[in-house]
């Protein structure tokens, strides 16, 4: 018997019980739709985290001052002022696992240019910061070593700051006032956009860390040091070496606690990514279970259908249908239901993930391969759950089937 004919017989049988066929398909529709939508959510979360991580810079370590322990009272991170710029220079100079190191001071400041003002994040950094965080320069230049030595009153501004204070004008060589101190703009950074948490990375102004220390904060220590390891494999080594070096430099006796902490961003990244992965697997498996339940629904209805149509099966056998023909007829019916349900489910899944994207602002991402996988899987569910009822139909004895009331 030709495939086209089997197909027509199956479609006609389904058309006779439209509501039942639809309800049976609904299980698959919901299952496949859920798989597509859930995987889209999972993938979206993963790609968001990936972009967050790349926004942090790759292979980056952060050295923070440790906690001050005095008479058993531990004051918390950042409470000591033992970390100095010489530490940063020593890290960069002495450790072969480290490519760059830069002190970083950060403070929220009010910027004034002409008659406009704008609150932004002021960062005191060294020239190496450009490489550590992969900043690009759009016009002008970044800070250089000379600026550090002289604690020069120069600034490099981000895209957002340039737009807010200078509009369409060229900001180069214009003056920005921070706490009444005039800074000359020497460069504009290329745009980086938002971080995953929605923080605008371009809303910043960078000045020499020495200037920040002496003129704005009046301190001699640094708030943190960011370090870039030479490669991803060397991050761990760099972390250990920095710890050793700083203990030595800070003269910390054996057995005493560090007065600093070295944070490895790739640890954080990995943790975040594995969380996302676990979530994706979890969502995917919940959706997979609902697809399985849909498959069981198909099997259930097919079994009912075989019983109901026992007489029809008997008639078909009497007029010359082989077991194989009967088997194929019921199997194709199951697969048509599962496949149609799969297609509708795919559309539903794509639709709902688009809705989540536009209405709930969830970063969903549809991987084209998941569409094929979901369709293939639903067809496979049809074959798997259709097989037993079809075999039951094919195995009927024609005499008994004809006599069945």
């Amino acid at each position: 018997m030709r495939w086209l004919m089997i197909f027509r017989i199956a479609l006609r049988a389904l058309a006779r019980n439209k509501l039942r066929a639809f309800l049976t398909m609904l299980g698959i529709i919901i299952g496949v739709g859920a798989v597509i939508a859930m995987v889209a959510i999972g993938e979206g979360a993963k790609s968001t985290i990936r972009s967050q991580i790349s926004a942090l810079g790759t292979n980056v370590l952060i050295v923070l001052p440790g906690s001050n322990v005095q008479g058993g009272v531990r004051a918390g991170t950042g409470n000591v002022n033992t970390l100095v710029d010489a530490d940063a220079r020593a890290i960069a100079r002495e450790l072969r696992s480290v490519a760059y190191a830069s002190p970083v001071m950060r403070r929220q400041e009010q910027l004034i240019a002409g008659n406009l003002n704008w609150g932004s994040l002021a960062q005191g950094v060294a020239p190496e910061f450009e490489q550590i965080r992969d900043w690009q320069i759009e016009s002008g230049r970044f800070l250089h070593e000379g600026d550090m030595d002289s604690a020069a009153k120069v600034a490099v501004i981000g895209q957002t700051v340039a737009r807010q204070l200078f509009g369409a004008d060229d900001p180069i060589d214009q003056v920005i006032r921070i706490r009444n101190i005039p800074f000359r703009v020497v460069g504009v950074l290329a745009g980086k956009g938002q971080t995953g948490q929605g923080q605008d990375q371009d809303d910043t102004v960078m000045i020499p860390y020495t200037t920040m220390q002496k003129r704005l904060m009046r301190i001699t220590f640094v708030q943190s040091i960011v370090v870039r390891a030479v490669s991803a494999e060397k991050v761990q080594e760099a972390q250990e070496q920095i710890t050793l070096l700083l203990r030595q430099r800070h003269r910390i006796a054996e057995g005493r606690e560090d007065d600093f902490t070295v944070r490895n961003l790739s640890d954080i990244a990995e943790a975040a990514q594995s969380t996302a992965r676990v979530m994706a697997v979890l969502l995917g498996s919940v959706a997979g279970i609902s697809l399985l339940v849909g498959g069981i629904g198909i099997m259930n209805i097919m079994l009912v259908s075989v019983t109901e149509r026992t007489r029809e099966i008997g008639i078909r056998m009497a007029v010359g249908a082989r077991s194989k023909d009967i088997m194929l007829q019921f199997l194709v019916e199951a697969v048509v239901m599962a496949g149609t349900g799969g297609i509708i489910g795919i559309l539903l899944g794509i639709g709902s993930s688009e809705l989540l994207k536009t209405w709930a602002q969830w970063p969903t991402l549809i991987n084209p391969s998941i569409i094929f996988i979901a369709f293939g899987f639903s067809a496979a569910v049809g074959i798997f759950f259709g097989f037993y009822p079809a075999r039951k139909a094919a195995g009927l004895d024609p005499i008994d089937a004809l006599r069945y009331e």
Partner: protein
Amino acid sequence: MSEVIRVQDLQKIYRMGDVEVPALRGINLTIERGEFVAVMGSSGSGKSTFMNIIGCLDRPTGGKYWLEGEEVASLSADDWARIRNKRIGFVFQGFNLLARTTALENVELPMMYNGFAGKERHQRAVEVLNLVGLGQRQDHTPNRLSGGQQQRVAIARALVNKPSLILADEPTGNLDSATSNEIMGLFQHLNSDQGITIILVTHESDIAEHAKRQIVFRDGEVISDKPNNQVLAHVEA
């Protein structure tokens, strides 16, 4: 005349738990092409079992069965399906048409299982529906047809693949006597004008009167096998 059916020492024993119930105890018969045979007997006489075996629906426990010279009792289930499709047409007491399927499609059904092209199938189905006098009602579904009309559709379905014989199992059992006579008239017409071999199972002697030969079963054995002189005389006259 050539042989259509020959059975030799045909036996069938049903096993119910430990008890063996013999349904056929060694039947020997030959049916020639063009015959119209009535198989008679009360229920439990073995006539239905005989029909099932002749119709390649059931396997004998012992003995041999040749259909047009081919030993078929030992063939595979798929071969049997092919034989039922091409060489045997069934007519049942309960009509056994597919519900919610038009008369035409019901008649086309056997041809779906032997690869007829759509157009040819349609033509042939219309042809046999005309032969049984239902050409005007080909698009009606069984629930819109009378019992007699439904049985005509079933006969058309049995004829559509040009079988060697038609097996009719109590074809008038669900019909009133006037309609029964019409259907029997149709069988007689098919037998005498088209030369189709017909085997009819019935327990009503007045129905059996339409056949040219009457075989009576009792307790799994043939107790009488004789020509129906009345009909033969009528035909010859």
